[in-house]
């Protein structure tokens, strides 16, 4: 990923030089990926939106301190993650009176199945199956799986975002994949409890 100068690095450079349109372009193209990532931490759309705005304002104001040769995606993801978690933490502290369900303590990763591709009955079963496997993963593993498989980020990029060593990313991924690849039926209590838990989160998310 590092050995080609991507189109977005050109836009990034323009932004660093003070090109406002370039900032707008970056924000526009990263809005959805960042919003989706943000949704793993909170279901509050407004908080996500505000945090993304703040992120780009900070990027703009710090542009004279930022490096040219930067991995734009992992830089934005890691800054966004830090900023959003800080905001949520503060909100959590101030919102002691209301137990607001929209601030998830956990990394929420729920899969859907596109039933245009797979026929319905089978699809529902599959969706449940993967959701069971995924929701049984610890937070860190879930997040690594998300970044790896649904955001196609490299080991190094993930290590940067989560502020952990690349080797740790590999280890976490290995363990998570070990669990995901086990097609063996889950134990009885899991089979009973986790679907409940999953549908509970699904209601939550909506």
């Amino acid at each position, binding site marked *: 990923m590092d050995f080609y100068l991507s189109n977005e690095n050109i836009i990034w450079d323009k932004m660093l030089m003070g090109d406002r349109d370039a900032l707008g372009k970056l924000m*526009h193209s990263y809005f959805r990926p960042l919003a*989706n990532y*943000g949704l793993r931490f909170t279901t509050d759309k407004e908080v996500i939106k505000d945090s993304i705005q703040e992120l780009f*304002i900070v990027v*703009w104001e710090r542009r004279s301190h930022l490096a040219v040769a930067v991995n734009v995606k992992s830089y934005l993801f890691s800054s966004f993650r830090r900023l959003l978690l800080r905001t949520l933490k503060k909100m959590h502290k101030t919102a002691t009176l209301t137990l607001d369900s929209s601030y998830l303590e956990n990394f929420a990763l729920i899969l859907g199945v*596109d039933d245009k591709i797979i026929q319905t009955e089978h699809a529902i079963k*599959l969706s449940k199956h*993967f959701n069971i496997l995924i929701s049984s993963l610890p937070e860190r593993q879930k997040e690594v799986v998300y970044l790896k498989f649904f955001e196609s980020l490299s080991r190094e990029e993930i290590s940067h975002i989560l502020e952990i060593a690349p080797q740790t990313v590999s280890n976490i991924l290995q363990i998570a994949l070990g669990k995901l690849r086990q097609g063996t039926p889950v134990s009885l209590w899991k089979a009973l409890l986790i679907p409940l838990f999953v549908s509970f989160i699904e209601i939550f998310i909506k």
Partner: protein
Amino acid sequence: MQINDPYTQYSLEEFIWDERFRNDVLKGEERFAYWDNWMKLHPSKQPIVEKARLIVLSIYVKNVYFHEDEIQRIVKDVHMMLDSDHVEETTFSTTSTKRNSYKYLFIAASVVVLSLIGWIWIGKDKAVDFSYKPSYENLIRQVNKKLIERENQTNAPLIITFPDGSKAMLSKNSKISYTENFTSSEKREVFLVGEAYFEVTKNTQKPFFVYADGLVTRVLGTKFRVRSYSVDKEVVVEVTSGKVSVFANPDYLSGDKKESNQLSSIVLVPNQKISYLKSDASIIKTLVNNPIVLLPLSEGKMSFDFDNTPIFTVFKVLKENYGIDIVFDEELLSQCSLNANLEGYSLYEQLNVVCKALNGNYEVLDGRVIIVAKGCINK
């Protein structure tokens, strides 16, 4: 040749979560050609590979939906925020050395965060100081500059022109004072008890401050109203045009020393209003009682006559005409449309009609309108 190919031993799940396999599936037919060949070599594995491919293609993460228009608006908002921040920066740099400018950039950014997170802290911060009760007289006493005072004891409003050309329309039983060296000092400072409507001449180098009880309003050039009668429990600021920032300040002198007032400032845009509660120095942001359409017809005001108009567009018209934010569930209401001529009604009457059609209602929160609706009745 393929004897040690580990893929021959793979289960369905192992294929699904294999990085290389996933990439080949997701990056299109060309990349998948390898697997077409592979299946020919391992015909017994064909069903499993086909199935794994379909599953990889079909599973996706459940995501939040933002409409394209909404994203564009959000990007535009950032540009607007940067415009206003830029102006603030220049005023900061007149009082600070370059070494400090980075710090102020950080503060400017923090202003944004804090105003988003809410006004709760202002109350927290300021409630500590009970010894001092801010009032017009107390503020004036702290100013060690010569002041010029004007008072309106008549029933008609009194128009006051400041040395810089800015104007204030002073209501009855109101008093205002301003520094004698108004134009030569680096801030334009005005102290108010009672009510006044201001039209401030733009000067980005010299911000205009209105001190009213424990609330400070800071502008560069706008139209706004401040109401702060000493018998009232609250101070109210309403904006007609431009941008205004307000912050709680229990003590005139503390304003110069601390940065905290900058940190906890709240930005108001037209049709927004804040109420500052004197008792606990808390600030609540809402909309003015009767929001006005900001743009005249000639300057792009959009018609309120809706004919089978998608609800998204209806809200867009309301948003842009009044310059306010309306939050609603786009996904839920995407199928809804509206047939009504709302021309000549107030914003709140218009919202009532729209919400009725959407089987819901609205609330005003933090200067924004939040639509809570179940969806349209017909569909």
